[in-house]
């Protein structure tokens, strides 16, 4: 588990790469994993079906 050498040094100014900040954030990943397919599949599909015209 977490050991002293893994804790961030308070004096370090080295910036964490952006992709690492994304991949190290499980709740962000959870949100993206639900939101992206939800929007691209569910919402897109519902909007498409809701906009079908009435048969003449």
């Amino acid at each position, binding site marked *: *588990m977490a050991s002293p*050498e893994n804790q961030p040094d308070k004096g370090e100014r*080295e910036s964490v*790469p952006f992709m690492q900040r994304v991949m190290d954030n499980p709740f962000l990943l959870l949100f993206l994993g639900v939101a992206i397919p939800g929007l691209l599949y569910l919402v897109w599909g519902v909007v498409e079906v809701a906009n079908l015209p009435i*048969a*003449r």
Partner: protein
Amino acid sequence: MAIFPPTNKNWWNEPLEKTEIVWIIIAFLWGMVMFFSMIIWHVIGNQNLSNEAYRVKPEVYAERTEAAAEKYKVGEEGDSGIPVVHPPAGGDAYMLARLWEWWPVLELEKGKTYRLHLSSLDWLHGFSMQPTNINIEVHPNYEMILTIAPDKAGIYDIVCNEFCGIGHHTMVGRIHVVEPGGNVNYVNK
């Protein structure tokens, strides 16, 4: 062991082992093959999709189908005496799905284009035309329109391929494709 956090605080830029890179590349390339295959197949696969759909009330759709059947009826077929309907070439052909039949039987002319209207009166059925690859879900409240141009005369049977209840396996229909000007001698058995 991977269960512990990486020893280097900034692990993103650490070099990967060669086998891991190879594994990632193979999986990524295969993912790309599958993704673009879907797009390519959509273009070249000749899948007979419906690209025209409307919302409709089942009772309204039933009236339209029955009106077309009455107007263009040319005979009856089979023990049930199901009407055979010959819609105008280049026009609209109506077929409905209900528990447990495809109604009516259609007679279409080879080489002509039709707008085949499909809808269900109760719940989901599957329109599967044998032996072609035309395969479409038929829902109540939605009228799907397939633009089709039969190119080979013969008998095409419709089977329902979405399980719809106790009579699902008996739910069959028929489309006759005839030469222009030709017809079929429908004999009641």
